[in-house]
């Protein structure tokens, strides 16, 4: 075996049993009655009631020391399962993996913090949970507190911390783990954008220190900046393993045609489905990253299997943490399409988009006459908005406003009783 290999994965697979017709925490009573029934009826207990599915199947790859590899794939493709197996949280059903070196897994920052304990106490608790020794934490303690910037609150219970301080402290502990191999899951981490940025910075520092990083993300932008190589998972299988550019292309193609789960059936059987989806700039060039305030052109090519009277095309923009940001529909914009049948193209020209810098996903819905019956529901591709200042701390969107000013003292003298309060002027 190559001695340069940090992670070697061979035929790894994880099977889950789906228990039909019951929730995960089914009661002991349910379990016993089922057993009893199957005894009486002499039917196979396991075969009738359980279905299996492979969250990960036949995954094989090798990662060398110092390599940074992105794991990409749609939701449910097996990315998190892979990371959970490699970090020994759950056991594989088949295959094996060999990891050489001190491993650090950041599947979620701050798990293990206890709200009642002080910052100092939690540093020790979380540190040991992550696998550091007490002596090691003693040594790094000042540096951790410094990194987190919570010096004044280190002896305050963390339940009184703001969520930002909480994450900063937790992350500071994790960042001091100094792993040789880092498993990083951006998807599972707290949806705080500033934290995600910290994650990337931290990973970049590790990169410089020649650490091996396995990075799961939906954010192709960070994957591109971090990794030369990606592993693309689809339905639990490794579909592609190679240069990032090519892998992302595959991923984006699949993104376009993926479906939102709440619409039943296969898209091909729907009355209408979206075959192609393009995100363009106003000149019609395909684009992934937009500046704040840029107009976006969305072009979708549909295939209608039957004629549809006055369809309503709805395009919604959702932020990566699930917040629905805006919604355009032909109905509300008064754009009437009388009837469609067969193939066609529809294009949306947005006004200057004032969304803050983040990752956004496009959802497409087609409804019959206004907001009636749902005919089609698909998730389109993603795009980024880039801005140096306006991020999610500033809100969902930013729009410049007008201001007016009055000196408090002089206005108090001139405009009578103060009770009326300050005057606001709308421009």
């Amino acid at each position, binding site marked *: 075996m190559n001695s340069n290999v940090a992670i070697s994965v061979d035929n790894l697979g994880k099977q889950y049993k789906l228990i039909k017709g019951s929730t995960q925490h089914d009661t002991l009573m349910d379990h016993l009655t089922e057993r009893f029934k199957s005894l009486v009826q002499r039917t196979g207990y396991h075969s009738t009631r359980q279905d299996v599915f492979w969250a990960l199947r036949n995954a094989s790859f090798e990662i060398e020391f110092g390599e940074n590899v992105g794991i990409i794939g749609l939701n449910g493709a097996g990315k998190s399962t892979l990371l959970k197996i490699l970090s020994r*949280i759950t056991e*594989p059903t088949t295959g*094996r*993996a060999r990891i050489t070196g*001190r491993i650090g897994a950041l599947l979620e920052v701050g798990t*293990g913090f206890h709200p*009642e304990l002080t910052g100092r106490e939690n540093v020790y*608790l979380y540190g040991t949970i992550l696998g*550091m020794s007490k002596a*090691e934490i003693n040594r790094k303690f000042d540096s951790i507190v410094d990194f987190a910037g919570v010096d004044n609150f280190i002896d305050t219970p963390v339940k009184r911390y703001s969520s930002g301080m909480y994450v900063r402290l937790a992350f500071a502990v994790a960042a001091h783990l100094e792993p040789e191999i880092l498993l990083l899951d951006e998807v599972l981490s707290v949806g705080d954008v500033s934290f995600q940025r910290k994650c990337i910075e931290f990973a970049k520092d590790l990169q410089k220190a020649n650490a091996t990083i396995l990075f799961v993300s939906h954010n192709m932008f960070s994957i591109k900046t971090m990794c030369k190589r990606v592993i693309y998972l689809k339905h639990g299988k490794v579909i592609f393993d190679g240069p990032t550019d090519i892998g992302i292309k595959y991923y984006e193609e699949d993104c376009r045609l993926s479906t939102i789960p709440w619409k039943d059936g296969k898209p091909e059987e729907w009355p209408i489905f979206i075959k192609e989806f393009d995100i363009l700039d106003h000149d019609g060039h395909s684009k992934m990253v937009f500046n704040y305030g840029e107009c976006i052109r969305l072009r979708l090519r549909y295939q209608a299997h039957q004629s549809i009277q006055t369809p309503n095309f709805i395009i919604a923009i959702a932020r990566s943490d699930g917040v629905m940001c805006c919604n355009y529909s032909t109905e509300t914009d008064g754009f009437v399409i009388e009837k469609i049948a067969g193939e066609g193209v529809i294009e949306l020209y947005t006004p200057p988009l004032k969304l803050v810098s983040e990752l956004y996903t496009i959802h497409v819905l087609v409804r019959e006459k206004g907001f009636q019956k749902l005919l089609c529901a698909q998730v389109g591709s993603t795009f980024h908005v880039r801005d140096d200042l306006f991020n999610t701390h500033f809100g969902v969107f930013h729009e410049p406003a007008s201001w007016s000013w009055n000196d408090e003292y002089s206005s108090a003298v001139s405009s009578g009783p103060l009770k009326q309060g300050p005057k606001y002027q709308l421009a």
Partner: protein
Amino acid sequence: MSADGYGSIHRRIIEIRPSKGIFMLDLQAVWQYRELLYFLVWRELKVRYKQAALGAGWAIIQPIFAVFIFTIVFGHFAKIPSDGIPYPLFALTAFLPWTYFSEALRRGTGGLVGDSELLRKIYFPRLIIPIAMVITPIVDLFVSLLVLAVLFGWYNLLPTWNAVYLPGFVLMAAILAFSAVLWLGPINVRFRDIQHILPFTIQVWMYASPIIYPLSMVPEKWQFYYSLNPMVGVIEGFRWSLLGTTAPNFEAIGISMGCVLLLLLCGLLYFKRMERFFADLI
């Protein structure tokens, strides 16, 4: 990399594969994570008495109140005999090990579910949790021994020299609780019903142990079978070593502890078998 010993532990090669053999206990991993064990016990203790004005004083107040009530209701009104020992002393010597045992059982059973976030997100030897939960209430036991000392002073009595055997009986209770928890904890991960059955079971078990009444009240011909309840051995052991009452039936203790050790061994194997699915089930 740092040159400390801890770092080198993590630099070893980790093999991940489906576990096949049932006799892989991997107790070595538990030893490597002993500092986590320490911090988990410490967390449990800290959290329990945090934001309580009396803090650890509760470990003293609780047994005082319980024994006070026992003395009034069972000693005074019901006039339950206590083998010639002042009833408060009689009740407390049994109540202390019993409180430890029931607390260890309760915490140990709920421990895995209580730390479900950890189980889902971070690797560490899962056995650490039940071990920590069984160790934690020992600290309370030590604190509440102070109450016992005061009570001895009040009655102007001294414990017998047999008191040196006391740790042995505490260990017995700990092993019993740990063995039970190795089974109940994983079952509780799958079926939360256990959490509801447990308080009721603990109550029944308490009345099946000689806490408020003496062993001598049990009909003679049943006494041996009665003593097979391992907690009978623990409680009688406490009374024997502190108060100098009749020695517990060591034969019965031997048999019941033999069964407990078997339960412990099978429990360890069962726990190791089930821990693979904790993250998926919890």
